[in-house]
């Protein structure tokens, strides 16, 4: 009996200063000591919050960023400021593990958190396939292999179907699409961004064909006019683009009335809603 009580106490992690940990490597090659049982997690990236919400009970997520707004139930989770990161609040929350996407947190800050006893795990995902791998990986770390595997299989199946259909479209039949992030200043999803991969599954191609140092390059008005995309997809807040740059009325997209709008969260957060995002792009491209 005493043994059972002791075992329960140990497994619940009553003394968090003496957590049993395991060594692992995150996606950017850092060695991370992660507790064997992860009970309290913080996500510093909206797309990872969506992954976590899909495969683990929400009670395990102890904080989210102000930008983590999906699914609706997540809004009940306390918010933590990320720009700048509220380290004091984060320490008070005593998370077992902090998830963050590469580029969303400086390595120095992650090291600082590690010194304070908080494990930080960087995830790196870009393509639709990467997202599926990330779901599996998070599932393993969270002891939610089953749920994560199920989610990954479903997404993988849908993705395969989309790929088969996309491959049937001849290269020259695929419309050139520009997905605009912001109108003032002009920023777009570049060739190396995940949006190019999404467009491939949607049966289209990115109008930006050159690789630039930034996967989300800033464009000049002249470059955009020369690009002359067949379709422009952007978010509602950028509907002023033709007022700002009247010369774009010469573009094929404007002349053929092919300016379409997409939900910002859907396109800007490459997470478990990847299929939803691709299907929306496919619908807009087909219009």
């Amino acid at each position, binding site marked *: 009996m005493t043994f059972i009580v002791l075992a329960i106490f140990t497994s619940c992690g009553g003394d968090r200063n003496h957590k049993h940990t395991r060594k692992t490597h995150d996606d950017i090659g850092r060695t991370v000591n992660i507790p064997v049982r992860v009970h309290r997690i913080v996500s510093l990236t909206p797309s990872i919050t969506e992954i976590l919400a899909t495969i683990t009970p929400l009670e395990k997520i102890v904080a989210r960023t*102000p930008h983590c707004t999906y699914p609706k139930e997540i809004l009940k989770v306390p918010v933590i400021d990320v720009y700048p990161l509220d380290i004091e609040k984060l320490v008070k929350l005593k998370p077992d593990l902090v998830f963050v996407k590469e580029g969303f947190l400086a390595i120095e800050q992650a090291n600082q958190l590690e010194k304070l006893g908080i494990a930080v795990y960087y995830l790196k995902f870009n393509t639709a396939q990467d997202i599926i791998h990330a779901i599996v990986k998070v599932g393993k770390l969270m002891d939610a292999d089953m749920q994560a595997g199920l989610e990954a299989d479903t997404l993988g199946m849908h993705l395969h179907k989309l790929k088969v259909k996309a491959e049937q479209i001849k290269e020259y039949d695929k419309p050139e699409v520009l997905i605009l*992030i*912001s*109108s*003032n*200043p*002009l*920023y777009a999803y570049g060739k190396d961004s995940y949006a190019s991969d999404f467009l491939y599954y949607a049966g289209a191609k990115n109008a930006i064909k*050159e690789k*630039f140092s930034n996967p989300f*390059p*800033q*464009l*000049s*008005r*002249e*470059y955009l*006019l*020369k690009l*002359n995309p067949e379709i422009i997809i952007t978010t509602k*807040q*950028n509907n*002023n683009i033709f*007022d*700002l740059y009247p*010369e774009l009325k*010469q573009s094929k997209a404007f002349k053929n009335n092919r300016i379409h709008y997409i939900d910002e969260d859907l396109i800007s957060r490459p997470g478990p809603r990847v299929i939803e995002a691709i299907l929306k792009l496919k619908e807009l491209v087909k219009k």
Partner: protein
Amino acid sequence: MLNKLLPTILTSIIFLGIFLGVSDIIFVDNGFDLIFDTNSTTSIIFWELRLPRLLTAILVGASLALAGCLSQYLFNNPLADPYILGTASGASLGANLLPLILPIGLLSTTLGAWLGAVVITGITLLISFKNKHIQVYKLLLNGMAMSSFAAAVISFLIFTTSSDQQLRQIIFWVIGSFERAQWIQIPFLAIVLLLTLVYLYFKHNALTLLLIGEEQAKVMGLNTNVLKITLLLFLTLLVSFSVACAGPIGFVGIVIPHIARSINSKLNYNYYVISSLLGACLLLFGEIISHPIYPPSGLPIGVLTSFIGVPFFVYLINKGK
């Protein structure tokens, strides 16, 4: 002899620069013909984007350099830059605030920047008046205070903004660029520049007296108060229009007058002309090379001009003249 020829040489360089800036359009297949075909993309790029950008670069470069000369005279200080009255911070603030209240496209940013520049400079001037006289040291300190205040409001906007787009907009504006160049801005820039040059043509001797010392100038019968107010008015107009059209581009206003002085040591009218032409050349060539260096947006012009100009400036300062 060289000094007298220099304005002609620099003007020729500017024309060469304009030609270089559009040469890629002219020398492509049928490029020259397409410029005059109003339905072609080439024509729109040439007339609506490229030319206004190059002309804005020339006029802003000349205006900022000239404004630099004026502020160095006015404050009798080689470190005085044209933004010393809070003009640049005021413009940045206005450019970011007005589009929120009056969203009328790119023009609202330009208008906001101009209003911000004029309001902040106006406040600086008003609070520096005492007994119908402008006290230069007060002007300097009040300018710094107003500038810090406007910069603090911008920092607050950056910190509290929830939208990535707004954040990018603020940063983009603070860096400075010719992407917003439009034909409508060019007459304003040109008229202010021309009026200042005409004024200086008639008043450059009085300015030289002011540089020797205010008391001596008064003894010589110069109404220094009127001169200072007129200079401040031209300084405000030059800087506010420049900043409204291209954002707060640094370096040009403080460094070009020194370069001009090292070439043309006499403080005559030629000095102003050479300063303006050098400023125009620097921003024009900066604009031309910024796009191939960092495609597709181009490197921010303020960053690029500093990269080009600082080594040259350091060389001139230290060569012993």
